[in-house]
């Protein structure tokens, strides 16, 4: 049986975590291929909708990367992200999604090592969790008629 390979969307801030990912490359570190990075200027830009949208479109995990507390390039965008992240995680947990599928990490531009370790670890966690939705209770497929096309 082939093993499950998760898809991870990385929402990384331009100044810290994205640079850490660049540094990992420059240092030729090898890490799990499951991560796909989308760059934002600051983790404070990240709207909870982005996370939902990622899951909606097939992500198995979302990794948000920002600057360490106190280190934000934009003073405290990372804290704003933290506030949203904590509330979003609570919501996801409430609807039955395993909270380990969203992860927030502070990774500075020099912490390529940490990036590598976090990505590998996250991929491993997600492999154990299985595809997104595995943790949701299975429900009978209902025979609901598809929507009718417009009359006019």
């Amino acid at each position, binding site marked *: *049986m*082939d093993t*499950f390979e998760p898809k991870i969307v990385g929402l990384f801030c331009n100044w810290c975590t994205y640079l850490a990912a660049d540094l990992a490359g420059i240092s030729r570190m090898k890490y799990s291929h499951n991560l796909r990075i989308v760059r934002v200027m600051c983790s404070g830009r990240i*709207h*909870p*909708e982005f996370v*939902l*949208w990622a*899951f*909606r479109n*097939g992500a198995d995990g979302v990794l948000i990367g920002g600057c360490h*507390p106190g280190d934000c390039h934009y003073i*405290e965008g990372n*804290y*704003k992200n*933290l*506030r*949203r992240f*904590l*509330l*979003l995680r*609570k*919501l996801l947990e*409430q*609807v*039955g*999604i395993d909270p380990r599928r969203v992860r927030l990490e502070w990774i500075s531009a020099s912490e390529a090592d940490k990036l590598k370790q976090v990505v590998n670890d996250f991929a491993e966690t997600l492999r154990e969790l*299985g*595809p*997104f*939705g*595995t943790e*949701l*209770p*299975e*429900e*009978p497929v*209902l025979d*609901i*008629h598809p*929507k*009718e*096309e*417009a*009359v*006019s």
Partner: protein
Amino acid sequence: MKKKVAFYWCASCGGCEEAVVDLAEFLLDALEQIEIVFWPVAMDFKIEDVEQLTDGEIFASFINGAVLLSDQEEVVRLLRRKSQVVVAFGSCSHQGGVPGLINTHDRQDVFDYYYHNGPTVQRNGNEMPTPTGAKAFHVALPEYYGKARPLNQVIEVDYYIPGCAPPPNVVKDALLQLLSDSPPPRGTVLAGAHSLCSECPLNETKPPEGFKIKQFVRPSQVTHIDPDTCLLMQGLPCLGPVTRSGCNALCIKGHMPCTGCFGPLDGVRDFGAAALSFLASLIDSNDEAEIQRIIDEGLPDPLGTFYMYSFPGSLLNEVLQKGRQKARAWREREETVEAQTTENQ
């Protein structure tokens, strides 16, 4: 000639019917221009009467409630065929509404609670309604889908009148717009274009330099609400900033925070996510433990707070649906592989 109009209710509380009655004298005036051809809650028309109309003969059907049962689906499809214009009336029809929250529960759990475990239920064995019903009477119960759907997930919808229930002024304006010579473009939500703050009398009490929130409280937890200060600034999780205006801040005037029944503004993909994002961002703390505490104490039920009216049509619901599909597909694939392996052995 008078324009033919129909009213129908699906899974709803009846408040939307009341909203029509609340039009009072205006309803009488309107009857100069319209003729009601179907209104089960108030008038004695039968389905057959509607079926006899030609397609498109009805000018407009106003349908409230979420679609939860098979008969509701049949009727709304029929009305769609017979109507030029279908208006989703009220929050349930617009976004799924409060009944939509059952979508977060398993169908069986809902039945168990409703027929057996609910605190107000007297247990009488294991009676459960079944779609086939009691054969002797040749009556069949409609099928319960287990999931509530907003109207636009069942049929094409031309307009939306939001609100739980829509206040008379909103209904009245909507009717006038629809009857006018230049009706608004299809798909329009017939209410304000900005968020509730734009018409809230307390908006001007916000300081020009903005504000943050140190703790959230629920209305039931506070003994005193200052009627002259923005409720959000007082820590009440008022969803006014993210909710469409039109109600003239009715709840706020009653000292209750907005719970978002008018739904999101155009361009907002997920009401709950937008509400969550702005409320969380306003938390006045940078300390992880403290933020967590503020959330746990003040917003213990994010789903109920942010998706009270909008869950079935939300991106969040879509996420869950897609997740289940994905997990199911993976399980099936694994089973097939396993079966093949066994076969090969």
